C-alpha cells in the first residue's frame, strides 16, 4: 500500500477532506504529493455549488447565452504533471476574467467550504465558465465597435488520471488543452500520459512552460524535450509564471486563436453529453453536460438514451464558477441541468440526453468504468453490519463509481465486496467511511479481477480470491490477469535499480529512450497486481524520489496464477486468501506467515500458521502456547480491581475475529495489506 498510505496521510492532514475526497478519484496515486497549499486554489475553482444557497448578494445581470454562438465559445482544459502549477494557473485565469475576485474571494470561499462540509454536499464541479473580450486578428473591430466577448469553458481534467475513463470524459467536451510543464522539472510521466490522451482525442495542444520565475528554470531544455518527445514546435510554447503573473496575458488569446470552436449545429435536435453528476441534498442530482447540438431550455422534457427515462429540465445554467441559472444552454456550451433524478445511478456518465420524443443518434460516450481493484469491507465489530450498510449506501449516493455486492466471510462475517476504479479511489472510500460515517472497517487485501478458465470450458471472473475453490473439481486450464502500461521517467543514473525492480514485478519493456542527456523514458507492461501494493513507494525509494510514474489500463495477459490459502491450525481463513503468480507464491506465502506470526498473540494452545496452494503447504510458522497469564498478586478483598483487569481482557477477546478456536486481532488484517 505504499503510495496509498502516503496519500492518505496527506488526506488526513488536510482540513479539506470532504472536498478532496470528491476529487480524489480523479487523481492519480501520484497525487500523494499534493500539498495543502494546493487546496485553496481548488476551492475557488470548484467548490462553489453551495453558493447558490447563499444570499446571492452580488446579483449579476442575467447572462444571455444566446449571444454566444459556437464561434464565440472555446472549451479547453489544463493538463499537467502533478505540482507543475495547473491549479494556480487555472486560478489566475479565473481572476483574469473576473470570474473570481482576486484576494477577495478567498476567505469567503473558505467559509463556504465549512458549510459544504457540514452539509455533506459534494464538491465535484469541474467546469468554470469565463467571459473574455478579445479581438481576433483579421477581424475589424477598430471602428468604435467593442471586441467580441468569448465564452470560455475551463473544464477541469482531473489532475492526471487514475483512469483513462475519467480523463476521456473530461476531454470529450474540449477541443483543446493547455499542456503545462514545469520549467525546471521538464517533462514527467504524467505529462506524457496526458499528452497522449489529448493527442489521441485530436485536441489542439497549447504548450505552456510554467514557473519560469524559478532560479533553476530552463525553458530551452523543456522546449527541446517537447520537440523530441511530442514533436511540438518550440515556438508555440508560451512562457509563464502563474506565481508572478508573467506571460499570463498570452494565454487566453492563444486559447481563442489556436483552439477551434466547438462543432455542432444549433438547428439540429438537442444532443447533450452527460459529463458528470453529483448528488445535492437540496436539489437532487445535478448533471454536468456539454451541449453537442441544439438548444436546451429550462422546462424542456428530456430523456436519457441509456435508461429511457424522461425528466424535466427544472434548472439550467452554467458554472460561473458557482451554479448560475441561465435558463438556456446552446450548442457548444457546457453547463448543468437539474432534472429531478433521484440518484446518481440514473445519471450515467457518457450518456446522451435528448429532447423527449425526438430521435437522435446517440453520442459515442465513454468506455464504461472498469473496476480494477476489489477488496472486501467488513465492520470491525460484526454487529455493526447495519451501520456499515447504511454508511455505504449514503456514500455511494455521491460516488456511483463504486460497485458494491454483499458477501460473507467465515472469519469476518457479513460484509461487502467493493470494486474501485483504482487504489486511491479505494483508499478515499475507506477514509470517507471512517471519517464521515464513523464506520470502523476491516478491509481485506486488495485484489485485481482475474479470469480463470476451467477444463469444461467455463470462464469465471474472480473478484474475491476466496470464491475460487482451493481444490477445484474442474482443472484450471488457463488464467488471465489485467495489465497496465506504465510510463516511468527517471534520471539516467537510476536505470539499473529501476530495471531490476520492474523485472521483479514481471514487467515487460516496451520502450526505452532518452528524453535528453540526463533523463530516461521507459514504458513497461506490468501486471496490475504487481503495482497494487507497494510499487510506487519502492520506485520512489530506489530513485531518491526522482522517478515519475504513471500508468494506464491495458489488456489481460495469460499468467500462471495460483490461489494461496492461509490456514490457522488447519482451518483456511477465507478473508486472507490471495491469488498470486506461481513464481512468487513461495515468497509471498513466507512473508504472510511471518507477518501473521508477529501480529497474532499467543493463545492457550499452539497455533500453526500455514500458507498453502491447494493441499500443498508451502510455508509454516508456529506460535507456541502461552505459558502464563495469572493474577497472583495480593489484592486482598479488592475484587473490583481484579475484575476490571479480567474484563479488559475479555473485551480484548471480543474485538478479535475468530477462525476455529484461533483469535485473530483486527490488526492482522491491516498488516496483511502491507505484504506485497
Amino acid at each position, binding site marked *: 500500500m505504499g503510495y496509498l498510505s502516503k496519500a492518505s496521510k496527506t488526506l488526513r492532514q488536510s482540513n479539506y477532506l470532504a472536498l478532496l475526497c470528491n476529487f480524489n478519484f480523479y487523481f492519480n496515486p501520484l497525487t500523494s504529493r499534493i500539498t495543502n497549499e494546493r487546496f485553496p486554489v481548488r476551492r475557488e475553482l470548484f467548490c462553489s455549488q453551495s453558493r447558490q444557497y447563499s444570499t446571492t448578494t452580488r446579483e449579476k445581470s442575467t447572462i444571455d447565452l444566446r449571444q454566444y454562438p459556437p464561434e464565440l465559445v472555446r472549451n479547453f482544459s489544463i493538463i499537467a504533471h502533478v505540482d507543475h502549477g495547473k491549479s494556480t494557473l487555472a486560478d489566475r485565469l479565473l481572476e483574469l476574467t473576473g470570474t473570481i475576485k482576486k484576494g477577495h474571494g478567498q476567505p469567503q470561499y473558505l467559509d463556504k467550504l465549512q458549510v459544504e462540509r457540514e452539509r455533506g454536499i459534494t464538491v465535484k464541479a469541474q467546469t468554470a465558465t469565463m467571459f473574455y473580450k478579445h479581438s481576433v486578428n483579421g477581424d475589424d473591430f477598430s471602428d468604435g465597435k467593442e471586441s467580441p466577448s468569448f465564452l470560455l469553458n475551463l473544464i477541469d481534467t482531473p489532475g492526471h488520471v487514475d483512469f483513462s475513463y475519467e480523463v476521456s470524459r473530461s476531454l470529450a467536451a474540449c477541443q483543446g488543452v493547455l499542456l503545462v510543464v514545469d520549467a525546471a522539472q521538464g517533462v514527467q510521466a504524467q505529462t506524457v500520459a496526458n499528452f497522449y490522451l489529448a493527442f489521441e482525442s485530436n485536441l489542439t495542444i497549447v504548450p505552456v512552460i510554467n514557473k519560469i520565475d524559478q532560479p533553476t528554470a530552463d525553458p530551452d531544455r523543456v522546449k527541446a524535450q517537447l520537440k523530441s518527445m511530442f514533436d511540438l514546435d518550440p515556438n508555440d510554447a508560451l512562457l509563464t509564471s502563474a506565481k508572478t503573473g508573467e506571460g499570463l496575458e498570452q494565454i487566453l488569446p492563444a486559447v481563442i486563436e489556436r483552439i477551434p470552436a466547438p462543432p455542432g449545429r444549433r438547428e439540429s435536435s438537442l444532443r447533450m453529453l452527460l459529463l458528470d453528476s453529483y448528488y445535492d441534498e437540496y436539489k437532487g442530482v445535478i448533471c454536468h453536460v456539454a451541449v453537442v447540438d441544439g438548444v436546451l431550455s429550462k422546462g424542456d422534457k428530456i430523456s436519457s438514451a441509456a435508461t429511457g427515462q424522461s425528466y424535466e429540465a427544472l434548472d439550467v445554467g452554467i458554472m460561473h464558477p458557482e451554479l448560475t441559472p441561465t435558463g438556456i444552454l446552446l450548442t457548444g456550451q457546457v453547463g448543468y441541468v437539474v432534472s429531478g433524478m433521484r440518484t446518481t445511478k440514473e445519471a450515467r456518465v457518457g450518456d446522451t440526453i435528448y429532447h423527449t420524443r425526438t430521435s437522435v443518434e446517440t453520442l459515442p460516450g465513454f468506455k464504461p468504468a472498469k473496476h480494477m481493484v476489489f477488496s472486501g469491507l467488513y465492520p470491525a465489530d460484526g454487529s455493526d453490519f447495519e451501520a456499515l450498510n447504511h454508511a455505504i449506501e449514503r456514500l455511494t449516493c455521491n460516488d456511483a463509481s463504486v460497485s458494491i455486492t454483499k458477501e460473507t466471510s467465515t472469519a469476518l462475517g457479513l460484509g461487502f465486496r467493493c470494486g474501485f476504479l483504482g487504489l486511491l479511489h479505494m483508499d478515499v472510500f475507506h477514509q470517507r467511511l471512517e471519517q464521515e460515517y464513523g464506520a470502523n472497517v476491516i478491509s481485506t487485501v486488495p485484489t485485481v479481477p482475474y479470469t480463470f478458465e476451467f477444463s469444461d470450458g467455463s470462464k469465471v471472473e474472480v473478484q474475491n480470491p476466496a470464491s475460487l475453490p482451493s481444490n477445484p473439481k474442474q482443472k484450471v486450464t488457463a488464467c488471465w490477469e489485467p495489465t497496465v502500461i506504465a510510463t516511468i521517467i527517471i534520471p539516467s543514473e537510476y536505470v539499473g535499480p529501476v530495471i531490476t525492480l520492474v523485472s521483479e514485478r514481471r514487467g515487460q519493456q516496451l520502450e526505452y529512450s532518452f528524453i535528453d542527456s540526463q533523463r530516461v523514458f521507459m514504458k513497461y507492461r506490468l501486471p496490475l497486481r504487481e503495482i497494487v501494493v507497494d510499487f510506487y513507494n519502492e520506485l520512489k525509494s530506489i530513485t531518491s524520489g526522482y522517478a515519475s510514474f504513471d500508468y494506464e489500463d491495458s489488456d489481460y495477459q495469460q499468467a500462471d496464477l495460483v490461489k494461496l490459502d492461509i490456514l490457522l491450525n488447519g482451518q483456511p481463513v477465507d478473508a486472507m486468501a490471495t491469488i498470486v503468480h506461481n513464481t512468487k507464491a513461495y515468497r509471498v506465502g513466507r512473508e504472510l506467515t511471518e507477518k501473521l506470526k508477529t501480529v497474532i498473540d499467543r*493463545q*492457550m*494452545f499452539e497455533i500453526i500458521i500455514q500458507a498453502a496452494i491447494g493441499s500443498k503447504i508451502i510455508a509454516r510458522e508456529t506460535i507456541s502456547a*502461552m*505459558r*502464563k*497469564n*495469572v*493474577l*497472583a*498478586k*495480593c489484592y*486482598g*478483598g*479488592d*475484587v*473490583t*480491581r*481484579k*475484575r476490571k*483487569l*479480567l*474484563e479488559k*481482557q*475479555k473485551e*480484548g*477477546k*471480543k474485538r478479535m475475529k475468530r477462525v476455529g*478456536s484461533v483469535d485473530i486481532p483486527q490488526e492482522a488484517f491491516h498488516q496483511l495489506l502491507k505484504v506485497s
Partner: protein
Amino acid sequence: MLLKSSFTPIFLVQTPKSKAQKLHHAFTKTFFTNSTPPVRHNASLNVATPPPASSAYIHLPFCRKRCHYCDFPIVALGSASTQTHHDPRVSNYIDWLCREITATKVDQPASTTPLQTVYFGGGTPSLVPPAMVSSVLESLRVKFGLCKDAEISMEMDPGTFGAEKMRKMIALGVNRVSLGVQAFQEELLRACGRAHGVQEVHEAISVVKSCGVENWSIDLIASLPHQSCEMWEESLRLTIESQPSHVSVYDLQIEQGTKFGRFYFLLHCRQQGFKLQLQLPLCNDLLYCEKLRTDTLYKLPFLTVSRIAMKLSLQFETLISDLAEYSPGEFPMPSETQSAEFYKMASRMLTDANYNHYEISSYCKSGYECKHNFIYWKNEPFYAFGLGSASFVGGLRYSRPRKVNDYINFVQNLENGLVDSSGDGNINAKDMAMDVVMLSLRTAQGLDLKSFQESFGSSVVLSLLEAYKPYVESGLVVCMDEHRRTIMDDLNYSFLYKTNTEKRVAYIRLSDPEGFLLSNELIALAFGVIDSWKACPQYQEAKAT
C-alpha cells in the same frame, strides 16, 4: 432440539423444586419470585438477604519505606521508625479508623452474627503498637461483637517486631500471622526495596515459632528482577524447612506508578531509542537502575519528561507486555517461560512437602486455610475499614479513598450520614455471575455448577461448559463429580453436560499448575460467555413470538 433446550429462558428452570432452594453460599441464596413471568430476563437479581457480614479487613497502612513494587495505599514513616508509639500520624489514623468502625452501619442488624474473622493488612500492621491494635479490636467488639474463636490474622514484616511485641499481639487475640518474607536472598530483598534483610527474616521466623503461633504463613514473591531458578528453589526450600502452616506465593506485578514501573519504562524508552532528558526524580530512579544493572544503563539517551509522562499514562500495560515478549534476557525481569517455571516449581515443591495448593497463590497444611480469604473467594460479604480498603456489604463493593485526607473526609461524611458504604442488597445478575466465576475458579474447590445453575440458569452453565470444552480436553480445566473426584472419562464430554450436568459434572476447576497459570485467559473466556448470556433467552423468545 438441542439448541432449543439450551436456549430455554433461564427463569423457566426455576420450577418450584424444593431441592433448588437448598443453596450453599451467598451467591446461591438468590431467588426469583415465582409470580414473575419469565420476561424479566435481564433485570437484576433480587438477592434475598445474603448472610450478614461476619468478617472484617482492617488496613494499617504504615511502612518504614515503600517497596519498589508496591502500589498499595501506604504511609511511609521513614526507615528509622520501628517505635511508633508517639508518632501522631499513627495515633491519629487509629482514631479515625475507630471512628469509621463505630460509624459504619451494621449489616442486617436483625440477624447479625459476631465477627468470625478479622484481618489486619497493610502496609505493615506489625509497626502499629499493640495498644492501638487493641483499641481497634475493642471498637470492633463493641460494634459487631467478636467470636471467641475468631480467626484474627495480622501481616507482620521481619524487622518490625520482637518476641515481646509478638506476645502482646497474641494476648490481644491475634492467632494467625502472615509473615512478609518475600525472599531469602539479601540482593533480592535489597533490589525490591524491602526494609529488612535475610537476618531479620530468620529472627522473625524464630520469634513467631517460639511464641507458639501455630497458624502462620510465609509470603513469598516470585519473578523478582534477577531472581534465578536456584534462588527461587532456595527460598522455597528454606520456607519448607521453617514449617509454616501456610505459604502464599505471589507474583511480582509491575505496576504503573511504582519504582519498578518507572524503571521498566525507562529501559523501554532506551530500547526504543528515545532520548532521555534527565530530570531530578528520574535521576534517582536511574541511579537505582544502575545499581541493578549498570551495563544496560550508563548510556541512557535523552527524552523529555512530558513525553515520559504521556507514555506512562497511555501505554504502560503495553510496554510491560512488550518488554516481556520482545526482549527476554535483555531485562533483568524473568521471561514468561521462566516465570511459569517458578510457579510450577512452587507448586511441585510445596505439594511434595504436604501443602495443599488450595488457591492460585495459597498453599496450606491440611486445615490451615485462611478463613478470612475464603470469605472473598466464596463471594461472601465482609466489612473493611481504613485507607483504601474495599468492603462488600449489602451487595456493594465499596473502595475507600486512598489518600489520608480524603479518607478523613470520608469518615466525617460517614459519621454525618452523607455516605453509606453498604448497598441495598441488589446485585446485577451478570456482575454477580462474573464475580462468582472469577473467585471460585481461583480455588481448588472450583465452581459449583449446581448452585451456579440454580442462581443463573442452565443455559449459561451449558455455554460455559461448551466454551471450556477444548480446555477440558487439553487438561487446563478439570471436571469433578459430586465428591470432587476428577472425572477421568473425557471420552464423552458432550454427553456429560448436555444431558447429565447435575448428576455427573458437579464442579469444574482449573488444573494445577497449568490451568492456574492461564487463569486470566480462562476466566476472561468465562466472562465472555456470561456477557453474551443474557441475550440468548431474549433472542429465543423474540423468535418464538
